[in-house]
């Protein structure tokens, strides 16, 4: 307990250690939060989800906080539904519904009102129409009312069970707008030379007729903005907050497990080798030499390509290949010295078993050296996981930072100016790596007497 307190006091003298500890604390808190806020199964469902899960999100949208830094305000996604959902994933407006029954069926008027106060045009305009009927399809007519009072006919159509109407793919609408793409034609200020959006309250009126009493008609209007959520979206409309948040526990767990596994196993194996000596020691030394010949990254890539890309398999192979490296030789040199100490002789004299000597007398001596190595080792493993993901060998199921970078790289994020896509995971990786590296450096100076004062 006292040593622990002394270590903390020593650490407090290094500002970089304080900064590192603080960041690590924040990361752990964020990791725990994300694991509780988005349970594992939900995270996987969302991450692996397709258009059905993510249809409300725009593709490749930048994060919403962009607007704080830009003069021109970019549009955000607007959702208005005629169904009042209990707990919608995204904030939704409710359409106004007026229904007047007829002898069979009803006249339904759905009114969608929204404020458009942005300086750029949206990415997409879509109606998701839903209906139930026995034989006769309901019929709708959609009209668009601009803030300056113009009325534009969008379309007249009968409604299938579920039908998607995409404004931008309606050739007739484009022709009616004079060859201008609808997201511009419908929102542009008619008095302006260059197309700029007309700000104000827009209204969409959907007049529907159902022909059966039990028939229903619902519609959800989606305006895809250029910005979305706290982290933006990727090419599959997925909200990047999920992999960014879930990347934290994955990265921390992988880094910690790999570093701890490697460090502790290396220590135990070299201690056993030194204590028993003879052929066991020789064997460990030879295995180390063979392992140094093996190409580490190539083998990991082969395992990822040929066997399994599961993060646990990769973790196991990483640990197995990292045990028998230079570390085992330097630990061995120290254990050789410790073995000759008088207190070991004393332990032998009172009849301590081999296992007791190894675990109670030999290994604790080296823990001060192990701790800085453990902490400093974490970033390299965190980056290793990301590196494999960047090569396309990331875990097929888990959302991780490396996979975001891989997706971004594959879809030419840097060429197409979607910097947020790469920068967000990269900055998180950098922060994580730096935090552990700074703490590790300070610990090294505290525990390693040769570095003291250097």
């Amino acid at each position, binding site marked *: 307990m006292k040593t622990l307190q002394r270590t903390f006091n020593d650490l407090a003298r290094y500002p970089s250690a304080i900064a590192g500890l603080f960041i690590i604390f924040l990361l752990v808190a964020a990791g725990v939060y994300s694991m509780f806020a988005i349970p594992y199964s939900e995270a996987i469902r969302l991450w692996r989800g397709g258009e059905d899960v993510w249809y409300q999100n725009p593709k490749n949208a930048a994060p919403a906080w962009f607007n704080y830094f830009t003069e021109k305000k970019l549009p955000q996604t607007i959702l208005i539904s005629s169904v009042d959902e209990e707990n919608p994933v995204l904030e939704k407006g409710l359409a106004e519904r007026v229904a007047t029954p007829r002898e069979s069926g009803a006249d339904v008027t759905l009114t969608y009102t929204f404020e458009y106060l942005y300086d750029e045009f949206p990415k997409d305009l879509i109606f998701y129409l839903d209906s139930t009927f026995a034989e006769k399809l309901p019929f709708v007519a959609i009209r668009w009312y601009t803030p300056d009072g113009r009325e534009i006919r969008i379309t007249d159509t009968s409604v299938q069970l579920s039908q998607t109407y995409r404004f931008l793919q309606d050739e007739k609408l484009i022709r009616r707008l004079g060859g201008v793409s609808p997201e511009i034609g419908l929102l542009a200020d008619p008095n302006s030379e260059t197309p700029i959006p007309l700000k104000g309250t827009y209204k969409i009126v959907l007049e529907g007729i159902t022909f059966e009493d039990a028939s229903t008609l619902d519609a959800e209007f989606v305006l895809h903005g250029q910005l979305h959520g706290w982290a933006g979206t990727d090419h599959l409309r997925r909200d990047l907050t999920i992999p960014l948040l879930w990347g934290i526990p994955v990265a921390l767990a992988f880094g910690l497990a790999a570093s701890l596994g490697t460090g502790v196993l290396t220590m135990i194996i070299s201690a056993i080798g030194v204590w028993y000596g003879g052929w066991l020691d020789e064997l460990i030394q030879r295995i180390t*030499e*063979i392992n140094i010949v093996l190409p580490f990254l190539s083998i990991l890539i*082969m395992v990822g*390509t*040929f066997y399994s890309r599961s993060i646990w398999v990769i973790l196991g192979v990483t640990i197995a290949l990292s045990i028998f490296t230079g570390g085992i030789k330097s630990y061995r040199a120290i254990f050789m010295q410790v073995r000759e100490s008088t207190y070991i002789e004393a332990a032998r004299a009172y009849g301590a078993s081999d296992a007791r000597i190894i675990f109670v007398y030999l290994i604790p001596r080296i823990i001060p050296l192990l701790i800085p190595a453990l902490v400093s080792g974490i970033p390299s493993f965190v980056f290793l996981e990301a590196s494999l993901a960047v090569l396309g060998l990331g875990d097929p199921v888990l959302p991780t930072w490396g996979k975001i970078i891989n997706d971004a790289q594959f879809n030419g994020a840097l*060429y197409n100016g979607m910097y947020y896509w790469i920068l967000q995971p990269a900055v998180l990786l950098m922060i994580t790596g730096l935090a552990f590296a700074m703490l590790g450096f300070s610990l090294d100076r505290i525990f390693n007497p040769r570095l003291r004062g250097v």
Partner: protein
Amino acid sequence: MTKTTDVQPNDVASYARKAASGTLTRVARYTAMRLLTLFVTIVIGVYLTILIANMGGYVDEILKGDIRERTAISISNNPTYRDYTVEQRNVLIQDKIRLEEERLGLNRPFALRSFSYLGNALTLNFGRSLNMVSDSGSKEVRNIILERLPSTLVLFGLSNLVLFFVSVFLALALSRHYGSFMDKAIVALSPTSAAPPWFYGIFLILIFAAVLHVLPFGGMVDAPPPDNWFEYALSVAEHMILPASALMLASIFLSIYNWRTFFLIYSSEDYVEMAKAKGLTSRDIESRYILRPTLPTIITSFALLLINLWTGAIITETIFNWPGLGRTLFRAVGLYDTPVIVASTIIFAYLLAITVFLLDFIYALVDPRVKVGGN
């Protein structure tokens, strides 16, 4: 005292001879043992690589399936065989598959083949690749590797050499000005080396290629490549700036920090204090009292640096589209092209073994405390 006076000149010569022959046998025995253990190490290491690269024989199944599919498609698409009956065609297909499998040696059991792979690898007889083709159209593994070697060497060789010498000399200077602003800055910046080169590569591409448009995104030369050798070299140099900077940025601070700490530990030795007290110039102190005892370590790390060039940097090359050995190796893994993977491994293993072997002798040369084969 009396003993030495008693010794006749003849005896001195015989002692010297005996000592010399003793050294010789010791060195010879040590050399033989060392070579043997290194060789056994290589054999086991390479055999393991062969097993992994073939997934213990499973790659064969993949290859066989691939051959069957390819042959069937090529024959059914070939107009020459249109008039053949289904049976005739099947016979033809089976024939072709058998030939192809024999060509790749798939008809023999894997356990047997793995040893002939091992033999070929150890004698540097790499044979032909399964799928990969060099840019000049050759399927010889040797050509595929040799073709990529220059581009890896020029990028990694240059940047690592610069990195090595810059960090050693800067570290030496810093250890002299211990506690200065530069020194503190390097110590503070050293944790940045936790990130690998490709990571810095992304940032560099973002800044200099995507935002500023001053340097290319990747690749090695402009497309189409310039005819004139001078322009060609200029173009390569331009493409090299970003990957080389990424490689150096990723390790320079840590490297300087490590060398600086290393030199500091040595410069706090008593004999250095003594030399200072004697009034020797700092140049003399550095070259005779600090660099001399640290020479084995410097040589080791330089030698390891040189052989590590061989593997290139798989991910940095991928990010920058640099046509080097690392990317070839990565592609080989993706194509299950075991001959290329094994060739790359065996060359690395040989280079490592030779270096380790030579280092023992170099230590003995530069450090009088070390004796070859001595304890």
